[in-house]
């Protein structure tokens, strides 16, 4: 497949990907750093490059609510948000998943208030990790674009029928011009295909009731059937990713395994910091240090069995969280990973880093590797450590 090499910001790349899915409806409200993505989309519509109907709502709560109405009516629908905007959607984020509506959402990760901060961390999406959406993470503009193409196929698959959020780091990815390969429109459309809603509010000959009162006698069964979809999702994610690889040559799974084959020590993280780690890993590899990286792509569903397998037998594993879990046992990625490793004799420790957009630099990555070496040699380290903060 001939693909065009272009230079775009992450926001622009995602706007293009969504446009190529030919959604019927988009609902959104501005919040930094998501804004540019919707600006770009609005330009497509204003110039006739897209026939999507946009609902320019008065809040994120209404953005998600309108998206729910649209998707329940049978329309392919997307929205986009960041940070406090996602927090304002909270209640309806759960409802979108519970109603099994395959909405796609660009989630431009940004710190939550307070204090108010517009820069990257993952506290926004992490707060919503149990809301029932599938969470895909991206390292750069290319992965943001690719995830935004694949998201539709995953969300709309009849075994899944769940909303998907494509996470990409605020400013670091959203506002940085990056080189990426884009599919031609017709190839993207052929891959994504037309959406066929299983149910619609718009057939008067076959009326449906959506969102009824659901009490002690049925609610639990409905939640159980919802849980079953997350069991099926991993196979669908892999199947769609494999088809995508056949088309583009870019291969995706639940994670990217960087120099893992013989690695004795492994760093686990999400998002754009992977690039920095890869650089430092390369340096250490030249010195003969067997260190590698596991960059997770799917945080929900959490690929626990996969992690247990890939990380099993290593001498030391550390997990880097770009969000805090106040009063908890480390960041969300750490607790999930360590739980996945339960019963194995692999020491797992964690870091909190990069909150509120604090730079994650080469020195921090090197510190992480030095600590991994100590632990691998039998040394001790705290469960939870901080990186790049003045103490």
């Amino acid at each position, binding site marked *: 497949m001939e693909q065009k090499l272009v230079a775009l910001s992450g926001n622009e790349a995602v706007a293009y990907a969504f446009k190529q899915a030919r959604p019927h409806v988009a609902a959104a409200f501005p919040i930094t750093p998501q804004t540019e993505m919707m600006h770009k989309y609005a330009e497509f519509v204003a110039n006739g490059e897209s026939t999507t109907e946009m609902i320019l709502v008065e809040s994120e709560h209404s953005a998600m609510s309108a998206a729910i*109405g649209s998707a*329940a009516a049978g329309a392919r*629908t997307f929205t986009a948000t960041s940070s406090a905007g996602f927090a304002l959607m909270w209640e309806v984020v759960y409802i979108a998943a519970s109603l099994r509506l395959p909405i796609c959402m660009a989630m431009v990760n940004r710190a939550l208030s307070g204090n108010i901060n517009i820069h990257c961390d993952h506290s926004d999406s992490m707060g919503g990790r149990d809301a029932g959406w599938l969470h895909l993470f991206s390292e750069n503009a290319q992965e943001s674009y690719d995830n935004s193409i694949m998201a539709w196929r995953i969300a709309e698959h009849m075994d899944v029928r769940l909303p998907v959020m494509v996470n990409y780091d605020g400013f670091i990815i959203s506002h940085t011009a990056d080189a990426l390969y884009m599919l031609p429109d017709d190839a993207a459309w052929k891959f994504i295909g037309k959406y066929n809603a299983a149910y619609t509010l718009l057939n*008067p000959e076959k*009326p449906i*009731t959506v*969102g009824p009162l659901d009490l002690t006698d049925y609610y639990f069964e409905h939640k159980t059937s919802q849980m079953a979809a997350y069991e099926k999702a991993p196979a669908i994610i892999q199947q769609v990713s494999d088809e995508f690889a056949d088309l583009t040559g870019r291969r995706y799974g639940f994670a990217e395994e960087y120099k893992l084959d013989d690695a004795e020590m492994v760093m686990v993280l999400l998002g754009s910091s992977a690039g920095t780690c890869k650089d430092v890993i390369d340096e250490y590899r030249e010195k003969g240090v067997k260190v590698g990286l596991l960059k997770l792509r799917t945080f929900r569903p959490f690929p626990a069995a996969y992690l247990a397998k890939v990380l099993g037998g290593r001498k030391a594993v550390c997990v880097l969280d770009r969000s805090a879990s106040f009063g908890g046992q480390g960041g969300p990625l750490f607790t999930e990973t360590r739980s996945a490793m339960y019963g194995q004799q692999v020491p797992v420790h964690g870091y909190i880093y990069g909150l509120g957009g604090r730079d994650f630099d080469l020195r921090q990555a090197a510190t992480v590797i030095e600590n991994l070496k100590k632990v691998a040699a039998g040394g001790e380290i705290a469960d939870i450590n901080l990186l790049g903060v003045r103490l």
Partner: protein
Amino acid sequence: MAVNLKQLTQNEDLLAGGHRACAGCTGANILRQIMLTAGKDTVMGGATGCMEVITTIFPYTAWKTSFIHSAFENCAATISGVETAFRSLKKHGELPVQREKMNFIAFGGDGGTYDIGLQSLSGAMERGHNMLYVCYDNEAYMNTGIQRSSATPLGAHTSTAPAGSVKQGKEQNRKDLTKILVAHNIPYVAQTTPYHWKDLATKVEKALAADGPAFLNILMPCTVGWHFDPAIGMELAKEAADNNFWPLFEVENGVYTINHKPKDPGPVAEWMKKQGRFKHLFKPGNEHLLEASQAYVDSEWKKLLKLEAMTAE
């Protein structure tokens, strides 16, 4: 447009019997009346509240048209999404069955409309969706146990502003939501009650025919929250229009028309006396609250007359 009673009685009843409204509830009656006029090509959206709870409980539904409920404060936004999906699917030739037009009706109680859903409602009206929003105004949060709302009238006893030895129920007048909607400069805004069936049907018809958003505020006497004999709900609805407590009027493209001008409105206190929520106001020492209630009704009525005169073509 002329509403024909014979025709209305022959239309299919799209809200099935067996729903779980209280005996004497006038809200379910409002929904039935709306549906008789709106017909089958309609999508209904309900805010969390009495009418949502009584018409659906899994695995049952009283709705013979499509119905969606998602949350308390977002019914207008949700229906705006449904309406936009209709326009987009129609434009793309992808409707499940061909329809030139469908009706999109959102409804909520006064809590879901005057209070928590006001922003969502305002946004949807401003955006110009082809939808009707109906507020069934029973003047408090009845579904959660009769708490005060910004629609609760002065002096009414509610569970969060109760009449006690020091306080005498709600301490503020209700706000005028209908005029807030008029200020959105949408094509059609009106007030009515379920007693005035012809007025209600006419207004639903006009609202659905309007090119753009429309809003109906319908007073809904509530036997539980207002504390009256379940047999007299409709009577109270009638009297509220007769004593100017709840004037019947409509605003078409900014022009006010009062649909019912009572010759002898009589004191509002006579109407209040029939409702337990105002019982304490008739104790010695609370005369000033009855006077204040009357003064509010009188002053609002005068304003309405002026608005009608001012906007007359």
